[in-house]
């Protein structure tokens, strides 16, 4: 057998046996593909992006001050008719007007309803009631507005929270002992929504008083999501609240996850006694009570009354919440350190820096990202909770948590004050959780190409 030189040439190139039919994908590209396939996670991602847009760009589009009180529209649910008639400025009233049975003097407006009546037969004084239902046979007169223990005053001006609509006023005679009797007179009154020129200028509806005249009609300020118990715009407050909630929700986890990664990686990589010491320190931090430290930080920061407690909250979270991440990352690093490819790399002479940056950190990235997305909703919850119990933001700055707290009082009558902030908290937390779920699946190397 003889061999020619040609037989000793290197094998030429690759033969096209196992062709790669699809483009080569990096780890993150692959993860992205799988995330895209997960509809739930993708929807959550859009939700999160939408929330960020709502928070950052929202206040530029909806330019309403979240602290301004529109006292004409207190606790207004969304989508109410806002047309108002312009009337002259309010003048006080001394009961002038024609005598006669219960009647309204002047117009019945949301500014005031002026009632005047003749003394009822045998009355030792009167009580004035207002109802949103007719009196009926039960003699349920409604809510008492005023009472007079003699017959010298036979008029009453109602200015209590008048809203456009129908009211049933009653004047009830008081008996000798001052008790309410069945002797009453009733009147149905339709109230119109009005405003004055001065108020219209004050609320920024018109530039100056010459633009409109008494008798004209005007639309009151628009509040797309209604107003709260002091007439503040819910949409503007939700946006301002989102700033606080998302700031805490994103910055705090970002910081403590970063710290946790560095701490855990160092402990896991160095190992031995140092590792033992560092992890026992982490255990110690876990044992510290969060709420107590939150209060201590607030005092240590010299946060005076009426100042925002957001910074101490941030510090408390960073200082106290990192051990979970640190433990997770340490576990990963310990595992990786013993992996065959790391040992091979070490045998080939790779330096520590290279090992950590090239092999270890990228392989823990998945875990870290997933932790981060799960920590964000937790942090938002913590912020909401702390603001709910009054440890967070200072009024008038809103936060979703403090808004929920305020909304609880009026839960039954004007539920929108509680529902909107609660809804925002729920949606945000859900979105981040689903996104985290999707990311975990997408970044899990073992599931690579499984989908």
């Amino acid at each position, binding site marked *: 057998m003889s061999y020619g030189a040609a037989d000793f040439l290197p094998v030429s190139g690759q033969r096209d046996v196992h062709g790669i039919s699809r483009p080569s994908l990096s780890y993150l590209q692959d993860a992205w593909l799988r995330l895209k396939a997960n509809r739930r996670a993708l929807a959550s991602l859009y939700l999160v992006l939408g929330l960020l847009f709502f928070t950052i760009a929202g206040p530029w589009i909806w330019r309403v001050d979240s*602290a*301004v*009180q529109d*006292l*004409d529209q*207190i606790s207004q649910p969304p989508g109410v008719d806002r047309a108002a008639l312009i009337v002259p400025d309010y003048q006080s009233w001394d009961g002038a007007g024609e005598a006669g049975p219960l009647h309204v003097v002047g117009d019945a407006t949301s500014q005031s309803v002026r009632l005047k009546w003749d003394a009822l037969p045998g009355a030792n004084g009167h009580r004035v009631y*207002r*109802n*949103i*239902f007719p009196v*009926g046979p*039960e*003699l*349920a*007169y*409604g*809510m*008492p*507005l005023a*009472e007079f223990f003699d017959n010298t005053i036979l008029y009453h001006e109602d*200015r*209590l*929270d008048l809203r456009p609509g129908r009211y049933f006023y009653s004047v009830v005679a008081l008996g000798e002992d001052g008790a*309410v009797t069945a002797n009453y007179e009733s009147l149905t009154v339709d109230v119109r929504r009005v405003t004055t020129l001065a108020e219209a200028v004050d609320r920024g509806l018109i530039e100056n008083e010459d633009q409109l005249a008494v008798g004209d009609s005007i639309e009151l300020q628009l509040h797309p999501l209604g107003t709260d*118990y*002091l*007439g503040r715009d819910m949409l503007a407050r939700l946006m301002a609240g989102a700033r606080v909630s998302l700031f805490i929700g994103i910055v705090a986890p970002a910081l403590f996850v970063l710290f946790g990664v560095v701490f855990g990686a160092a402990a896991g990589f160095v190992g031995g006694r140092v590792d033992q010491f560092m992890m026992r320190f982490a255990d110690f931090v876990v044992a510290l009570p969060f709420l107590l430290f939150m209060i201590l930080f607030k005092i240590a920061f010299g946060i*005076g*009354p*009426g*100042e925002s407690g957001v910074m101490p909250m941030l510090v408390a979270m960073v200082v106290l919440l990192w051990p979970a991440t640190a433990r997770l990352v340490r576990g990963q690093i310990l595992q990786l350190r013993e992996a065959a490819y790391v040992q091979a790399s070490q045998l080939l002479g790779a330096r520590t820096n290279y090992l950590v940056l090239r092999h270890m950190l990228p392989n823990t990235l998945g875990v870290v990202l997933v932790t981060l997305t799960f920590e964000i909703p937790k942090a938002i919850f913590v912020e909401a909770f702390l603001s709910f119990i*009054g440890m967070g933001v*200072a*009024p*008038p700055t809103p936060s979703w948590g403090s808004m929920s707290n*305020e909304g609880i*009082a*009026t839960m*039954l*009558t*004007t539920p929108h004050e509680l529902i909107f902030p609660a809804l925002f908290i729920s949606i945000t937390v859900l979105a981040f959780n689903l996104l985290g779920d999707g990311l975990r699946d997408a970044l899990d190397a073992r599931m690579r190409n499984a*989908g």
Partner: protein
Amino acid sequence: MNAQPSRTNFSALRQLALYVVFGLAAVVWLLGLAANSTGSAVTGGAIDAENDAITIALRTEPPQLDYGRATDSSSLTVLFHTMEGLLTYDDEMALIPGVAERWEIREDGATFWLREDARWSNGEPVTAHDFVFAWRRVQDPATASAYAFIMYPVKNAEAINRGDLPRETLGVRAVGDRILEVEFEQPTPYFDKLVAFVTFYPINEAFFESTGGRFGADADMLLYNGPYLMTEWVHSASMRWERNPDYWGDHKGFIDTINVGYITQDVNSRLNLFKDGQIADTQLVPQMLGEAMERRWQIDRSMDGTVFFLQLNFRDGHVTANKNFRKALLLAQDPVEFVYKALKEPSYMPAVSLFPYWIRGAEDYFRQEHPPIPHEYNVAKAREHLELARRELGLEEFPPIHLLADDSPLGSISAEYFQAVYARNLGLEMRIDKQIFKQRLAKMDAGEFDIVVSGWGPDYDDALTFGDLFSSWNLNNRGRYTSPEMDALVRIAQSELDPVRRMEAFAQIQDLVQEDVVIVPMYERGWSFVVDPRLKGFKRRAVGPEVDYTYAWIDEQAAD
């Protein structure tokens, strides 16, 4: 991966659903058990005509019922039903004889003649010695009674309380068992109204010694002499008051048993208890009124007696010490808008004066005899005063104003409302400092505020309970307002015997408070409430106990 569930999967799902259903059923059953066991503690519901009993709820539990040291409204309510002082109130809030059957008030002192048939619940008679013992104890510095000052008209009281004199020197003595002689420090024409207050109630000395320092801590740590006996007190849960068979009169205490079945701050849970027919009456807050009207309840109202105001700090270093600044604060807000639009409470009245409208004058209501200057809401004028203040103080810009308030819902609304009003009308920045009630009082004492949202309720039925609030020696003058003019007027109001001249002094106090802007009046508090239609004669009071069942009776015929 949306894998089609296979047959086996499907049955697994079914099994799971079954578990869930069973689990839920178990939870519901357990909850039902729990609800039953708590429900059975209270029997009979709101009105039990058969046993002549009613069930009510208290807002808070009395910390203790030692009346020498009691300060809170719950204690006052319980004590009003179970105790009686020298004098007491009838159902129209007029003074009537209590343990004393007649009395005489002179310039230098007073004499009370005690009735023969007033008895303690252990059968012993209530004697003048019991009053002497109780009053000396209140002034003893060791008792540390917060209401010791109310007894200062009695000779040497203040000196004893300071520890300068022994307690035996107090100007009160018993002449036999049935005559009580009181010596005054200075003329005190309103002394009869004072002795109806709990701090003046008697204590049986022998019984007091037998309690070993636990006086008033439990139902059996008190002797009762009022229309009701407290027979049971389960702390933070319930109380039981039963009609006192030994009570001397038959003009009050008609219902046999009053069960305090619930003690809860939460207005919503009290409303639910009322709806369920578990309690006889409850308070309504504005957001409940709509439902109350829908349910066709007969809503009642009453004045609570308390006036709420922004109290301003006169100490050095506070911008509120400047008169023009205070004027600006007063002019730039409108209590009418605050009460009618922000608070929306039909029983509240916008306040104008330190004195509430129900205070009695010489003959008529005080405010009808001496009407206060009406409030002026004038932003332009307010800004002028603010500018003057800025120049007087030599400031470029005003520092943030420290606004102290309660953490109650009402305290928060008030603080946030005024924060926005002063920001809008005066461009001032207010920092809200929300504190729990006790902490707010502590901060007020220490002067750590510029403006504080506070209120003042009457201790006795006389204009002086409001009138002496801003004298320089009154510790409740927490803004430390001092003016020789005010002090002189208060001294006249305290000791003037002619009612007309005395009321004129009060009128001048009213004007001075407005002129110097010691306070920015907010509202006079009231209550909107509902009562079970079968319960008659129930009262909510401005002075004394918050709720009064001593004149109430059950009318079975009244259908609901």
